[in-house]
């Protein structure tokens, strides 16, 4: 299983250049890509453009098998929000789907007069075993 930071790195490769910024109180900025777990995005940071949040702990489901084998299915929830009302998530969504063709359960909620456009997807996690000599 990958770590949240490995997933972050992959997501950053896929859509990093399309993400917006966190604007910190001291005037500096940081890419709007956050791993949410013990630490939330600080309340005094503002966000411009598109933000991507990855949950630090993935969802895990034990799929029953006919034997006593344990088959854990892991998937990482990814949340995207466009705080720029003139910029949709369509392009980022397409890039994510290209990078992760096995993405599951996408929920794309359009912008309304009171809320920003959001997209939630799950990236399944596969274990890759190294070759043994």
């Amino acid at each position, binding site marked *: 299983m990958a770590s949240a930071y490995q997933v972050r790195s992959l997501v950053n490769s896929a859509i990093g250049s399309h993400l917006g910024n966190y604007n910190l109180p001291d005037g500096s900025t940081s890419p709007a890509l956050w791993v949410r777990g013990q630490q939330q995005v600080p309340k005094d940071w503002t966000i411009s453009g598109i933000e991507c949040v990855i949950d630090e702990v993935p969802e895990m489901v034990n799929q029953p098998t006919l034997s006593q084998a344990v088959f854990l299915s892991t998937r990482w929830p990814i949340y995207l*929000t466009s*705080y720029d*009302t003139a910029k949709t998530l369509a392009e980022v969504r397409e890039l994510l789907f290209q990078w992760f063709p096995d993405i599951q359960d996408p*929920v794309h*909620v359009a912008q309304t007069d*009171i*809320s*920003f456009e*959001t997209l939630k997807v799950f990236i399944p996690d596969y274990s890759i075993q190294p070759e043994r000599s």
Partner: protein
Amino acid sequence: MATPKKLDTSALDKAIAKATEGLVNRLSAEYTKEISSAKWDWPDGSQRDIVDTGRLRASQTVRQVSDSKYEFSWPVEYAAQVHEGAKLKGGGEWPARPWTRTALENVDSKKYFETILRRELSG
């Protein structure tokens, strides 16, 4: 040699239809119960139901798509935002209140369906 007998599946079809209908009614009640339950965390620390004007709950619609397929929907313009949560333009956010997911967790659909099916088939 015995003549092959044609299998009459009408009793089974009827039982499946009855079990499906029973399960749909059960799920319908569970969705409404979840929307009405004061169990959803709110940013002020309280727990609330999902009833404000009552439009969302009243909008619950079930449509028979085929003999064995039914579709539930809540056709109000803010249903997705309530279910998935929303970041509000005026600041703050609505937490996700996924009443369909919790309802499906509460009901053992397979067992419920099987129970009705067995009852119908055993007469």
